[in-house]
C-alpha cells in the first residue's frame, strides 16, 4: 500500500468513526432513558419499603416479594448495560435485520415525532426468514439513514416502511393530508449525515442505499447471495 493509499484509508477510518460517534450521541439520551427505567422502579420500591418500615408496617412475605421485584429490576438494568456492547463496531454479534430496524425506530421515535415525521411500519409477510447480519454496523447504517431523513425533512412527512423481501427495505415518503403539527414547523438544523456520510456507513455495513425523491431503498447481501 502506498503512502497516499494509507493516508486515504486512515482518513476514511476517522471519518467513519466521527459519523458513528454523531449517530451514537444522537440516541444516547434514549439509551440513558431506557437504562434509568429499571433503576427508577428500584428506587420507588426502595422508597415504599423504607416508608413501610418507618411506619412499623413490616410484613415479611410482602417484603420478600418486593425484594424479588428489586432483584428483577437490577437484572434488567444489568442486561441493558451489557447490551450496550452493540455500540462497539468491532462486535461480531448478529441479529435479524427486522429486529434491528425495529430497535432503530424505537430509538429514533421521539426525534422523528419532534420533527413532525410520522412512521408507519407496514406488516411483513408471515413465515419469511431473515438471514442474520452483523448487528453493530447494520444498526449504525440504519440509524444514519433515519438521522439523514430527520436532518433533511423541511416539512411534515409520513414514512411508510416495508420489507420488500428479506434483504431489501423500502421507505416511501409522503406528505400527510392533514397535519396536526403543521403550526409547529421546525427549523432544519445543519445536516450532518449527508450522502457521503451515509455511503461510508453503508460500505462498512455491506448495505446499499438508493435514493429517489419519494422512495429510499436499503438493500444488503445475505449469505445466500
Amino acid at each position, binding site marked *: 500500500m502506498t503512502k497516499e493509499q494509507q493516508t486515504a484509508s486512515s482518513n476514511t477510518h476517522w471519518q467513519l468513526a466521527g459519523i458513528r460517534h454523531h449517530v451514537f450521541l444522537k440516541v444516547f439520551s434514549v439509551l440513558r432513558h431506557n437504562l434509568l427505567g429499571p433503576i427508577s422502579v428500584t428506587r420507588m420500591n426502595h422508597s*415504599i419499603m423504607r416508608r413501610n418500615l418507618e411506619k412499623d408496617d413490616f410484613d415479611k412475605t410482602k417484603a420478600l416479594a418486593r425484594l424479588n421485584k428489586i432483584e428483577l429490576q437490577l437484572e434488567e438494568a444489568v442486561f441493558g448495560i451489557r447490551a450496550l456492547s452493540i455500540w462497539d463496531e468491532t462486535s461480531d454479534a448478529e441479529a435479524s435485520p427486522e429486529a434491528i430496524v425495529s430497535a432503530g425506530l424505537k430509538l429514533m*421515535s421521539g426525534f422523528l415525532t419532534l420533527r413532525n415525521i410520522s412512521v408507519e411500519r407496514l406488516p411483513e409477510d408471515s413465515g419469511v426468514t431473515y438471514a442474520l447480519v452483523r448487528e453493530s454496523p447494520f444498526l449504525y447504517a440504519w440509524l444514519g439513514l433515519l438521522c439523514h431523513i430527520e436532518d433533511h425533512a423541511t416539512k411534515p412527512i409520513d414514512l411508510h416502511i416495508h420489507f420488500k423481501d428479506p434483504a431489501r427495505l423500502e421507505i416511501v415518503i409522503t406528505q400527510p393530508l392533514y397535519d396536526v403539527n403543521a403550526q409547529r414547523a421546525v427549523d432544519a438544523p445543519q445536516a450532518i449525515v449527508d450522502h457521503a456520510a451515509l455511503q461510508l456507513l453503508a460500505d462498512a455495513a455491506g448495505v446499499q442505499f438508493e435514493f429517489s425523491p419519494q422512495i429510499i431503498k436499503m438493500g444488503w447481501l445475505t449469505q445466500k447471495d
Partner: protein
Amino acid sequence: MKKSILIVEDYPEAGATFKELLELLGHEVEWVVNGQAAMQKLHEGAFDLVFMDLNLPDMHGLVLLKQVREKELSPDTRFIAVSGHSAKDAAAVEASRVFDHYLEKPIDLAVLNRILSSTA
C-alpha cells in the same frame, strides 16, 4: 391533601410501582398504559395531576399533551412529564416548555413530594 392522579406509563413495573407509591402517600390513583387510554380517562373525568411518560407506545407524550390542550380537556389539571431524558435533551427541553413540570427518572421522592404539595 388527597389528590386525584392519573399515571400514563407503558412500562408495567414502573406504572404499578409508581401507583403503589402514590397510593401509599395517600392519593387516589389510576394508571393507563398508552395515550389513547389516557385521552379516554381525561374525557371521563378530571384529575388534579397527570404523570406522563414521554415515550408511549402509540404516541409521544408531547403529542398527547397537545391533543389534550387542543380539545380543552382538564384545563385545571397539572401535567407532569416523567422521563429518563436528561433535562438538556431536545425532548426534555420541549417537555419542560409545554408541561407544568418535568420530573427526571429515577424519581426523587423529595421532588415528587414538592410537586404533590404544590398542587392545590
